[in-house]
């Protein structure tokens, strides 16, 4: 059941939480990724937050482009083709997978999990991508920017942390917008999945008993929220949308109600995540690495 808040001049918001509703709203013609900022102050604030995700030349990152944008479709197809070559890609990031496996098993690593994940994700794009504490800080700043309240938002922007973070991520991504999105924002889902794996590994002898696919099913995390705007009013499935509503698709919450792991990646929708094959394979390999080490030691 969707949840609606409408305070004139302040906010017009719809939160969608069930899997069918999420898919219906995601597919609705009147719902788009572009945010006009109309509908209230909060709507304007969110639109302003997302508007910063552009290249220095002003191009919007592909993940924020609309359904009918030919560039989005082209980016998606090209990236999906690259990331579908799963075997060699996982081979390329085998050291990072081993490191993450060690963390899942022991709870310790030479560097923070975020840095390892960022480097693994970055190396899916560039074999020599090198993440650091600074680059991971930049990613965390951008993630915080998206979820922060007004004061923190003001702080992040006015002290220059936002621009520094964007510049650092874009530099490391060599201008590749998909890489920037993956290493700044999307990587957080993998970090949360790894943390969930670690928690699972600590439960008794899960690491021995649970296979990689089952571990994946239990620990895969989807984006907590995906933001859209209803340009016009209407019904999407059973969800009634008012014009200029900010629409929050609570993907992670919906995912927990559906067994299909593809749901986390919108695998059957127009906005299918290009990493829908490689990320599950990566996580399964991390579990395998943790398991193998454990069995090796035993």
């Amino acid at each position, binding site marked *: 059941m969707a949840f609606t808040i409408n305070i004139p001049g302040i906010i017009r918001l719809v939160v969608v939480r069930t899997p069918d509703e999420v898919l219906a709203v995601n597919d609705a*013609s*009147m719902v*788009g990724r*572009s945010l*006009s900022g*109309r509908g209230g102050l909060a709507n304007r604030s969110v639109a302003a937050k997302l508007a910063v995700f552009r290249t220095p*030349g*002003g*191009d*919007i990152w592909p993940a924020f*482009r*609309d*359904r*009918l*944008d*030919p*560039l*989005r479709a082209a980016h998606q197809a090209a990236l999906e083709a690259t990331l579908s070559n799963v075997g060699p890609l996982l081979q390329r990031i085998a050291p990072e997978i081993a490191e993450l496996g060690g963390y899942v098993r022991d709870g310790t690593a030479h560097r923070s999990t975020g840095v390892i994940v960022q480097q693994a994700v970055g190396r899916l794009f560039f074999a020599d991508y090198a993440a650091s504490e600074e680059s991971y800080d930049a990613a965390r700043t951008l993630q915080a920017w998206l979820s922060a309240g007004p004061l923190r938002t003001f702080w992040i922007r006015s002290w220059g942390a936002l621009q520094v973070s964007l510049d650092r991520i874009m530099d490391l991504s060599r201008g590749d917008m998909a890489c920037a999105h993956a290493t700044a924002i999307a990587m957080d889902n993998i970090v949360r999945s790894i943390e969930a794996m670690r928690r699972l590994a600590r439960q008794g002898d899960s690491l021995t008993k649970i296979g990689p696919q089952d571990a994946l099913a239990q620990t895969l995390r989807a984006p907590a929220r995906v933001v859209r705007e209803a*340009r*016009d*009013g*209407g*019904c999407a499935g059973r969800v009634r949308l008012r*014009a*200029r509503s900010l629409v929050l698709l609570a993907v992670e919450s919906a995912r927990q109600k559906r067994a299909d792991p593809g749901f986390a990646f919108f695998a059957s929708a127009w906005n299918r995540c290009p990493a829908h094959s490689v990320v599950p394979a990566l996580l399964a390999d991390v579990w395998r690495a943790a398991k193998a080490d454990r069995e090796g030691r035993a």
Partner: protein
Amino acid sequence: MSRQNDGFDFHDGLPQQFLDVVYRAVNFFAKWDRLSTLVGAVNLAVFRDRLRAHNLHHAGYGIGTSDDWSAGNARWRSPDGSFNSLGHPRMGMAGSRFGRNFPLPECVPDSGDDLLDPSPRVISRELLARRTFIPATTLNLLAAAWIQFETHNWFSHGLPKRGDEFKIPLHPDDDWPDRVDGCMQIRRTLKDETPRETWLGAAPTFRNNNSHWWDAGQIYGSSHSRQAEIRSHTDGKITIGPDGMLPEDPKHPGADLTGFNDNWWVGLSLLHNLFAREHNALCDALKARYPAWCDEELFQRARLINAALIAKIHTIEWTPGILAHPALKFSMRANWSGVPYRVMRFVLGKNSEAAYGIPGSPTDQHSAPYAMTEEFTSVYRLHPLIPDEMDVRRLDRGEQVRCELVNMQGVSTRVFMEDHGFTNLLYSFGTNHPGAIRLHNFPNFLRRFEKVDQPLLDVAAIDIMRDRERGVPRYNRFRELVGKRRVGTFEEITSIPGAAAKMREIYKSVDRVDLLVGLLAEDLPEGFGFSDTAFRIFILMASRRLKSDRFFTDDYRPEVYTQFGLDWIDNNGLKSVLLRHVPQLGPALEGVTNGFAPWNVL
């Protein structure tokens, strides 16, 4: 500034910001059309500034450089409109893209089945089809011909080609004869095949085959080759046949040889002939004053003067004719020649467009490079102006005969003109009414229209599909984006009996109402011939056509036009042009102050 708008930015001064705040408060209590004339006129100027700041969006040029311009000829209009702006030579050039009045993410077509929902054919039959002719009694039929004459100056998307048609499922009881697999087919607008800029997003782009400028391109063409075809190459004149009329276009049977002759009919032929004669009269007058001028100089100068005269007629005669509101009449006069108050002129200064009119004021593109916009073409879908029948009257014998417009167009046009004569047809147009721009008044012959090289057309259904495929927002969002409040119910749109219920039955949600339907249904301000929502685009673009054009602003001066030319523009209007070339119309025009108002039936 942004690269999206090619570096152009809108700058408003303190007085404008102050007025903006004041009028937001005023409009909270009263709509602009309920205010006194002067206060209402200032309200319109405030609207215009807001629209200039927020409703001009560049969609890229989509074109390279021009071959139709040669250095040293900057004092003339180039055939294709290039180099009107010397700093941005592609701006407004024939073949360049249409711009947008809304941010590009708002200009995205519906996806999937929603694009065809509800069926345009159902809308054509249930909401647009003419039941009985509703006349616009304050206008004559020349007003209908005039706006098509003008839109042929401003834009053309080109003739759609076969392939990848929209397939509109037909209701079993629909008598549409040209069914293909149970569907009506509508060809798509010609694609823009030029490379897309990455910042365009999902907004579709289309190119204008004509020059975007108000340069009388419908008479003079939008290319050097077309211009060469229509010229006599003697004394700057346009070729006229031995009968005093434009010759036939050998490539377009039934149409006159002129700059742009698509969708040809008698109304267009009358106006093209009239202003071709005006051009040649200007050439004679210029040659008498400047005997040393060559053919090229005479042609180009006469073109400048003729184009400006047409713009003036449109601004201060056609517009107040169809939008007969005192504030608007005042504003349009101010647009052309400034306010009639000396004190205000002194205070506002010499360069103020409000004080002295736009002609002669500094050129300004405001927030985007000049281009006609898709939204502008949408609000100028005024087909209900066309009647299905008219009385053709003879000026000499007082006889009249009822004729169908379907027999006055396409390949039949020239035969009809020859049978009835230029003078009689002008008189007939001056004494017939056009249709009112309302629901249930779309000419039925255009709803089953045969056109050479095209399938059978339902122009009403096509009008609906054109807005949808080009990503023009539907009516309610369109309202919001031009600064009006969204409506919540169908009854808030219209008080036409039964219309709200019919719209609800077809659309279900008020946000789905097509732009054209909303514009035709909307209740009108006092004296208005079309909707206030369409008028918002009009407020912006009517001034912009003048203010962006170097030849109406920086170069509207004697060195370019000659003093004789500027005086000619000042001293003439539609009535004087008519009387100069067809003096027999004198009695019919006796006492008529606006050439687009009904003339005397003798």
